[in-house]
């Protein structure tokens, strides 16, 4: 439900940036990770080289590795063919993961994967619909309302990042990234997301490490 609001904003943002609807939908279908989709949208509009876009988007998805590693041992059950699990993890995204980490261990082993797939699939379809609705809504509204809808795209991240980031590393990385990212953009727009993340993230990591030692 809440994630759908994010995709509504993404759809509106795509419309506001003159990004085609089919490509926005395709990205929800194939990427299904809102931060990566936002990065792809913004970078392709800024005219970044395709290879740089793919590398940057892939890096924003690195969080899925520890998430999958953490969730999978509880999902596995001997009765399932491997390809089903490989197909199922494509649907793994933040919302489904957080819910599954809570609910799945309470279920009997053979019901876990079906529960996860059912939940994640519903999410996936809802996000596809929300992308289209946001896009079409933004296209049919007067400019004022359209600006409000497009604004939901970045606002979603501001709220969720400030509200849900708890770890010391996370908070430090947000602060460093928020400063470094826009600064680099003024010098090298097409590299700003990648460089800003690498520099800001490394700064934050080093700062927390030094404080831990001190």
């Amino acid at each position, binding site marked *: 439900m809440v994630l759908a609001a994010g995709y509504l904003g993404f759809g509106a943002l795509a419309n506001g940036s003159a990004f085609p609807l089919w490509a926005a939908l395709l990205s929800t279908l*194939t990427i299904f990770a809102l931060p990566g989709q936002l990065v792809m949208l*913004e970078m392709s509009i800024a005219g970044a080289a395709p290879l740089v876009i793919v590398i940057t*988007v892939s890096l924003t998805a690195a969080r899925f*590795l520890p998430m999958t590693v953490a969730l999978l*041992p509880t999902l596995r059950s001997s009765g399932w063919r491997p390809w089903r699990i490989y197909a199922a993890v494509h649907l793994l995204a933040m919302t489904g993961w957080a819910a599954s980490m809570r609910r799945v261990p309470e279920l009997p082993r053979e019901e876990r994967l079906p529960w996860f797939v059912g939940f994640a699939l519903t999410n996936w379809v809802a996000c596809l619909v929300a992308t289209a609705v946001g896009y079409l809504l933004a296209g049919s509204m007067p400019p004022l309302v359209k*600006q409000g809808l497009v604004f939901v795209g970045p606002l979603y991240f501001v709220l969720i990042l400030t509200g849900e980031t708890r770890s010391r590393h996370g908070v430090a*990385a947000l602060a460093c990234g928020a400063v470094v990212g826009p600064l680099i953009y003024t010098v090298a727009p097409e590299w700003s997301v990648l460089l800003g*993340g690498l520099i800001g993230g490394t700064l*934050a990591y080093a700062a927390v490490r030094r404080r831990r030692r001190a």
Partner: protein
Amino acid sequence: MLELALLVVACGLGTYLWRGIGLLISGRVRVDSEFFVWAGCVAYAMIAGLTMRIMLLPGGTLAQTATWQRLAACGIALVVYFVFRRNLFIGIAAGFVALIAVILLGR
């Protein structure tokens, strides 16, 4: 059009890669190592930097709004969000209404 489609699908593959590798190595590797902590920092910094950049230096439709208008609406949304115990839905709705209100007021 084909190029854009290929780009999107390639981004999708790059994203799936992490899910797939995670599945492959699950049960065999520790995820609390320093490398993953650093990778997490980079991912957070990327998204924070991009979000901040869109807020301060947007393109497209949002470029027609003033920076102070976006920041004011963002500030109002943040306050409402925390007052309503981090209710994302109410926070976003507040930001949406606030941006439209400040634009109307600025006319």
